[in-house]
């Protein structure tokens, strides 16, 4: 494409001037050097919404290599209301840089190396409404620093070392706060629908008549055990969704065989000469037993 580009160099200074004005238009009020540094670290600084001087800063997508040092640039910004540091390489020591970000309403520290050291720096973030500490090394000691955060209504401490006692103490100090510690799967009630009955369910044998057996319909995956109680070898045919016969082998007298199938499938049973004896339409029970009864002569 370069062959199309003819007029060249003179425009560069103009372009640079315009570039400078871009930044001031876009991120007015934020220090340019901090913005540039955050961008270089893979972080993003964005307006929370139109026409408001409120900012959200994120490192959890492309900026996960962020370390404590990088937080100095965040501290240089104004009016940060939301900060996401999930999965970054920060530690408790870096939290000192967040000490003065009192406009923060939402702070994500989950899945970082943050522990009890440094949490005291959050004690003065009185506008904090959301604090996520799941998957960190915090203990009850950290929770004691949060009692002054009267606006805090959501705190996440799943997969941490906090205890019932520590949480109860904080809940007392912050009665409006919802403290989420995850779920105990063992406490969830067992399912009440019976789908997989342990004993196989006997399938209905429909003896051959002039009426044509139906085609199979789509159903759920089940397992059928065929048992040949006749005195002759029989053949198993599956009647496909389109109505074609597909043979699934023979069954000797007295033999049993487990066959993968689907519910609402039609299984046609014939003798050795392909003369139909009868058929089964499988039910939705996961374990099905299809007994081919002895044929009366």
């Amino acid at each position, binding site marked *: 494409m370069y062959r199309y*580009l003819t007029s060249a160099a003179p425009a560069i200074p*103009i372009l640079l001037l315009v570039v400078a004005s871009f930044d001031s238009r876009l991120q007015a009020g934020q220090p340019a050097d901090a913005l540039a540094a955050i961008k270089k670290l893979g972080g993003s600084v964005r307006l929370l919404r139109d026409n408001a001087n409120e900012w959200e800063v994120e490192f959890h997508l492309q900026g996960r290599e962020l370390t404590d040092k990088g937080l100095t640039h965040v501290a240089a910004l104004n009016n940060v209301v939301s900060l996401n540091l999930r999965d970054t390489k920060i530690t408790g020591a870096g939290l000192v840089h967040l000490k003065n970000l009192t406009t923060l309403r939402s702070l994500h520290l989950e899945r970082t190396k943050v522990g009890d050291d440094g949490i005291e720096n959050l004690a003065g973030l009185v506008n904090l409404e*959301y604090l996520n500490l799941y998957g960190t090394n915090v203990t009850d000691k950290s929770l004691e620093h949060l009692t002054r955060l009267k606006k805090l209504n959501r705190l996440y401490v799943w997969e941490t070392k906090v205890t019932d006692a520590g949480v109860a103490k904080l809940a007392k100090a912050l009665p409006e706060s919802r403290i989420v510690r995850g779920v105990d799967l063992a406490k969830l009630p067992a399912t009440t629908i019976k789908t997989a009955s342990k004993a196989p369910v006997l399938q209905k044998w429909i003896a051959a008549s002039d009426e044509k057996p139906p085609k199979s319909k*789509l159903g759920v995956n089940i397992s059928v055990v065929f048992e040949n109680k006749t005195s002759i070898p029989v053949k198993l045919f599956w009647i496909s969704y389109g109505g074609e016969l597909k043979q699934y082998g023979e069954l000797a007298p007295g033999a049993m065989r487990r066959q993968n199938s689907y519910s609402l499938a039609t299984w046609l049973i014939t003798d050795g000469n392909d003369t139909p004896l009868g058929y089964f339409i499988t039910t939705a029970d996961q374990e099905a037993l299809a007994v081919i009864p002895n044929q009366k002569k």
Partner: protein
Amino acid sequence: MQGDFCGRTRREFLWESGCGFGAVALSALLGEDFFGSQQVRADGVTPFHNPLAPRPPHFEPKARSVIFLFMYGGPSHMDTFDYKPAMYGRDNQTVEVRTFGRGGHRNQGRIVEPRWRFRQYGECGKRVSDLFPYLAQRVDDIAFLHSMTADSPIHGSAMLMMNSGRILSGHPALGSWVNYGLGTVNQDLPGFVVMLDPRGGPISGARNWTSGYMPAYYEGTVMRSQGTAILNLDRPGGMSATSQRQVLDALRDYNDTHRMTRPGNSALNARIAGYELAYRMQSAAPEAVDLTQETNETRQLYGMDESRSEAFGRQCLLARRLVERGVRCIQIYSGGNHNDANWDAHGDLAHNHNLHAGETDKPIAGLLTDLKRRGLLDSTLVVWGGEFGRQPTAEYARGTGRDHNSYGFTMWLAGGGIRGGVSVGATDELGSAAVERPFHVKHLHATILRQLGLDPNRLSYFHGGLDQKLVGVEGAEPIREIIA
């Protein structure tokens, strides 16, 4: 809202502003993200668009992402969440009731008594049927809309309505509107992901996640939860990363030359941009779908330890991982293909709904639980429902099958700033039609946009002589009762 789509890219902008090699080099130094975030071009006036660059919303957003759990085929409301005590003990009774389904208009029918018991759950005491024993544990996080209505009781048009707000094809899907309005914060993955039922896709296929009259880069991307995440994405065997990059660069130069003479061709621009997104996704997509990074406990929570719920559980878990990676809109289909492979219970109601509820109950409950404990439910809006509900009466002279019903049905929302433990609106005593506070699909759409920080009546795209909106040119208000 975003002004015109002049379809120019960085290269065209440099070309048109009369710069040459020097400027090209400069642009390389500044990097993609610099220009990607610019709102005006070099003259300082003309808007410059990276179509997918993140944009500030109209309001402070409550939700950052939306997961739409689409129960394709139309789940029965009176058998799931809309308790109708008046129907019990009246199986096979003939009643006068006006219905309209695929079987046409009828004035009377034979009641099919719901096949499941309802029990009360949670602090709110919500009644939920035995179809959803796990999900029922989460009712305190859920807002139920019992008086939903839609314009069509036929699958194809009703699907388009639930996805794009219109019964005719060619309009952008909800996910396209969201990405148009907000852009995407993750440049390595698509902003709008669709996952289909392993048995097949829904009726009309890709028309349900099309970008319609919007540029093609807003279209949904189908992602698979198993095996290759995105088809045709892998580098051909024997090709190194370097040589692939060289091929792509050469191709891009040819494409750019081609584009110079075809300004404003959005489909072409999207296609060219698609090569670059695909290149970045080659590493980002496999990482996103790598569920080996998840613990056994988490897989169990999503029902991945049971064969019936394994597939949907895997998709729900993947949805959470995509939310964590900044994907704006994820749609998962439960049900596809035909007949009883989806929720369309025309034949045996119990067989059909036991199957589909059994496949989805634990995964959905697990998704809500997992989002909640990770602190993501606050910013993730989960929407559940089908294209319509089902009739209280039987479709045929025999059997328990119910026909379609767009006069009244249930959908629910959770998370993303939605009040939990509430139920709004009501159908009549048989569930045949919405009688109290009826909502249209556009009210649901308005609520979703509002929670994402977008004004449903301001988010517009000029097409066909009108400022088109997802909620229609006449607009619609969000459902305030369920907003926290």
